[in-house]
Every structure is written in C-alpha cells, then in structure tokens.
C-alpha cells in the first residue's frame, strides 16, 4: 500500500504543472475554451440557431447568444431527455444531473462524457492533487475516501432510456476503475435510494474501514459521523479512523459547521478543503490551507462570464469575461459548458479576492437573500453573524432558516428558526450579538434597524432536535445534496417547517 501511495501521490503532483499553466495564462486558456466549445457545438440545433460557426471572440459570442436560464433551455433539454440528440451538445447525452432545487423546482442538467471526464473527474483528481501538494507526507492512498452520494433513476420514454439523479450518483456510477479502488462505501450502498437505510448501512460498513479522507455535504456528514461514533461507542473519531487527514466539503457554507467538526475531529490535524461543485459543474477548489478562498478552475471545459449583482434585475445586464472582472465585487456567474449549457446563470454569487491567480469566495445565491425591507441581507452576512453569536454564547448550530415577518403596515422583522446542537448559554445575548453583528457588516440592515423604524429586533425560535431532518424527510428531500433554504423573501419554507413541527409534536 505504501508503494501504491507513493506512485499515486507522484502522479497527482504531476498535474500541478498544468494547473500552474492556467494560473499563469488564465485569459488565453479561457479564450481557447470558448472557441473549442463553440466550434464543437456549431452543428447542434442551438449552435446553428446562434451562428456558432462565425464566432471568433467573446464580443461576438455575447452579441449572438442571449443569457439563458433553465426555462429558456428547458425545451431542448426535455427533447434530449426523450432521445433527440445534437440539440445543445454534439455528443450523445443520456445522463441528467437533477439539481437539488434549493430555490426552484428540480432542474435536469445535461451530462456529457466530456463533461464528466473533463470537469467532474478532473475536479476530483485536482482536489487530491492539492492535498498531496499541501501535505508532502500524505497517506491518502493507504486508505479509502468516504464519499456521500445520492441515487439515480431510469426514465423510460418509449424505446429510449435516459437517467437522472444526483450528480454525485452519476459520478460514482461512471467512475474510472482507479478512482473506484480508493472510494467507499460499496457502490450498492453508495447508490441506495432510501437515504435513512443508506446512512445506517454506510455507518455499519465504514466503521471498520481505514478511511483517510471524507467528501460530502457537512450537514449529512455530521449525521453519518455521529451515528458511527454511536455504533462504536467512542467519543473520538481518531479511535475509529486514526489516519483520517482531510475533509473535502461543499454544497453549503462550512462556516456554521466548522466548530462542530473541530469538536468531532478533536484537534486531530484533519485538514479542511472547500470545493465548489454543483450539478452544473466543478468550479473551484481551496488550493491553499491558509485561506478559505478557492481557485477558479479554468481548464475544465467551462467558459466563465460574470454579471455584477447590481445589474441582476436589469433586462439586459452587463456581462464580463474573466479579464474584465474586479476584485471585491459580487458577481453572478454565467457558464458555457461541454455538456451544452450556454451562457447559463448558475444562481450563486461569488467575489474575487485575488486576480492573479483568480481566487474567490462564494457570497450567496442570487435568489437566496432577503430584501423585503431594503435590508439586502446576503447569506454570508447571516453566516458570519451566526458564527459570532455562537462563539460568544458557546452554541453550535445544526441548521436554520430565516424569513420576513410583517408586524404592522410599515414595520417588520426577520423571523429565524434555528436548530441547535448546543443551545446558547444566554439567548438574549445571542440575539443581541447576532443583531449587532448584522448591523456592523451590512449598512443597509443597520439603516433599516435604526430606532426600529423599519425592521425590529430579530425574532428567534429554537427548534427541537431533528426538526429540519424531519422536514426534509417529509418533503422527500433526504440526501446528500438537499439543503434547507436558509434565506427566503417569502414565508413558504418557514411556515412549512412550522407545520412539520406540529406533526412531530
């Protein structure tokens, strides 16, 4: 195993030269991908309709191809699901990543072979590359990578079969053999449909494995680890997985979970590496230990464009390519991919923290913010305020959701439903710190809170344990990529969670 570890680590480190290349020549690499994508798809229905053959530069591309959302691509996607090919991409597409639909109904994102290989598998390989670079003595390949995944289903349209499922399940099902060798649990467990049975079977099968790395959404990883500790009747994860060295996480912000994981890992020098991977693509990896920023991955077959958040509501928003973005500004991301998404708005907002190389942080979702009273509350504001309030009151959070509440005709407040793993030692103080931190980091919120004229003090409701789990379960949303919508401009989610509480009372 030690020899295998050395060979595998050496192979991974070799990739670093290619990464350095796109870090050094980002615009050339991106321009090359733009032309590669449009020339590959110029004979598709979409490519012909938008004259891909004549495109030679970015200016032409943005003039000829309008910005797309899921709804505008949906007719072509649905036809592809039913067996027609060469509509959005020139190679056959049979797989569709079902997006978790945190803010919308489910979407079916096309997955081509080029996309799986060039984007998701490259992403998976690169996260290991960075781990090998950051930890010269890595023993990653002496054990297994425990990956949380979803499941997939077959769609029968007459004679034609296509498949849809979590992108994680599509990745596991199509993994190359070398990667399958290092992955756990067994594929029959990893792709099980019933999430509760799957977690139980995963816990049972992984408790005696030599796990060296973990990958998955923090909320579900937490449930799995707690169950394993329970099964083995130990408090310290090191007693079960002494060689665990890194946790690759993504899907939701890690900020509210970090303290819980640190407690679980008990200072065992387990590194954290954030990934920005979604149904639509693999976009970023935290390449350095010292900061939470992620490196934008530029050679995965994705062409990136950016819309400043201030332009989002406009009918014809300005769009910029990578060479035109500025540091410290929030942008919504548009992607064109080698699976046939064209100028497609992903739904997340990011902020560049460095332009050479291009490093960024995720600042929120274009549709996950609260702006009912003009407070422009973004998810990163909320997470930082929660982290501060938790630190000051020794609390740990499982999950939360926030929605507006209208008190009189003119004023309102934010109503919070919070499930704690450990409740604050002083709830009034928790609320004060939360409120005051929000005022400090968001001037719009501060202005609306002034003298309680527009916004009153936050209303906090503490939920019993497992409330969000029960709500997800009731909505058939148990699984690695399902998330609780944390900020909403309406009260639908919040009221639904409250109704679910009554059922479980």
């Amino acid at each position: 195993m030690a020899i295998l570890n050395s060979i595998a680590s050496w192979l991974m480190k070799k990739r670093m030269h290619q990464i350095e290349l796109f870090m050094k020549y980002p615009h050339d690499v991106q321009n090359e991908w733009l032309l590669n994508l449009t020339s590959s798809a110029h004979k598709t229905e979409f490519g012909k309709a938008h004259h891909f053959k004549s495109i030679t530069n970015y200016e032409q591309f943005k003039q000829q191809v309008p910005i797309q959302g899921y709804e505008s691509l949906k007719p072509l996607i649905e036809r592809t699901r039913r067996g027609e090919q060469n509509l959005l991409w020139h190679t056959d597409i049979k797989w569709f990543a079902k997006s978790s639909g945190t803010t919308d109904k489910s979407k079916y994102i096309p997955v081509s072979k080029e996309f799986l290989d060039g984007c998701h598998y490259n992403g998976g390989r690169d996260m290991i590359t960075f781990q090998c670079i950051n930890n010269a003595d890595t023993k990653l390949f002496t054990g297994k990578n425990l990956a949380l995944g979803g499941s997939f289903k077959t769609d029968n349209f007459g004679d034609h079969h296509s498949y849809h499922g979590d992108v994680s399940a599509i990745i596991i099902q199509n993994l190359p053999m070398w990667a399958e060798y290092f992955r756990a649990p067994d594929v029959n467990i990893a792709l099980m449909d019933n999430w509760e049975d799957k977690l139980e079977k995963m816990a049972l099968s992984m408790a005696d494995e030599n796990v060296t790395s973990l990958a998955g959404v923090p909320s579900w990883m937490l449930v799995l680890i707690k169950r394993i500790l329970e099964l083995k009747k130990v408090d310290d994860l090191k007693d079960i997985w002494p060689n665990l060295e890194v946790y690759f996480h993504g899907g939701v912000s890690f900020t509210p979970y970090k303290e819980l994981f640190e407690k679980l890992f008990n200072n065992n020098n387990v590194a954290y590496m954030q990934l920005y991977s979604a149904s639509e693509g693999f976009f970023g990896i935290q390449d350095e230990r010292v900061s939470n920023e992620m490196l934008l991955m530029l050679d995965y077959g994705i062409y990136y464009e950016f819309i400043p958040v201030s332009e989002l509501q406009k009918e014809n928003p300005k769009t910029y390519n990578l060479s035109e973005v500025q540091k410290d500004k929030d942008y919504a991301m548009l992607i064109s991919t080698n699976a046939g998404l064209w100028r497609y708005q992903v739904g997340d907002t990011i902020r560049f923290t460095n332009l050479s190389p291009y490093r960024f942080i995720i600042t929120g979702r274009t549709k996950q913010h609260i702006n009912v009273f003009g407070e422009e509350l973004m998810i990163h504001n909320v997470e930082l305020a929660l982290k501060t309030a938790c630190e000051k009151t020794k609390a740990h959070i499982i999950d939360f959701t926030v929605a507006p509440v209208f008190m009189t005709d003119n004023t309102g407040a934010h109503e919070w439903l919070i499930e704690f793993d450990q409740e604050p030692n002083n709830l009034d103080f928790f609320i004060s710190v939360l409120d005051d931190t929000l005022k400090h980091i968001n001037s719009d919120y501060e202005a609306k809170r002034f003298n309680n004229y527009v916004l009153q003090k936050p209303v906090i409701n503490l939920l019993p344990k497992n409330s969000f789990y029960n709500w997800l379960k009731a909505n058939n949303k148990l699984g690695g990529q399902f998330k609780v919508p944390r900020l909403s401009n309406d009260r639908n989610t919040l009221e639904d969670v409250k109704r679910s509480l009554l059922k479980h009372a």
Partner: protein
Amino acid sequence: MKHGSYITNGKNYSYDNYTLTKGDKAVKIIVSYLQDDELLSNYANIVSQSIFKNKQQI
C-alpha cells in the same frame, strides 16, 4: 459589534469592538481578552451585555 481575534507575543486574543453614535459624535469601545480564558471571556460577555442594555444612556 465586530468580533475577531489577533495574536500578540505568541498569545491568541479575542476582541469585541463597539461603535456607538449619536449625531456626529461617536464612542468606540474595544473589549480585548485572552482567548480560551473562561473567566476573562465571561467578563467580556458581561461588559458586552451591559453595553447592549445601556446603549441609550452611554
């Protein structure tokens, strides 16, 4: 409130900064304490709670 941390002489400190304003006047209160020291962190919390409760008077 701005909560954060810094290192001085190899020791980790936390700080809570408050800026109270009235018209064009402002008072800045900085509460700084040794991290992981339960007693000092509790004192800091008492000061913080007092600031929250008495903002108007201050």
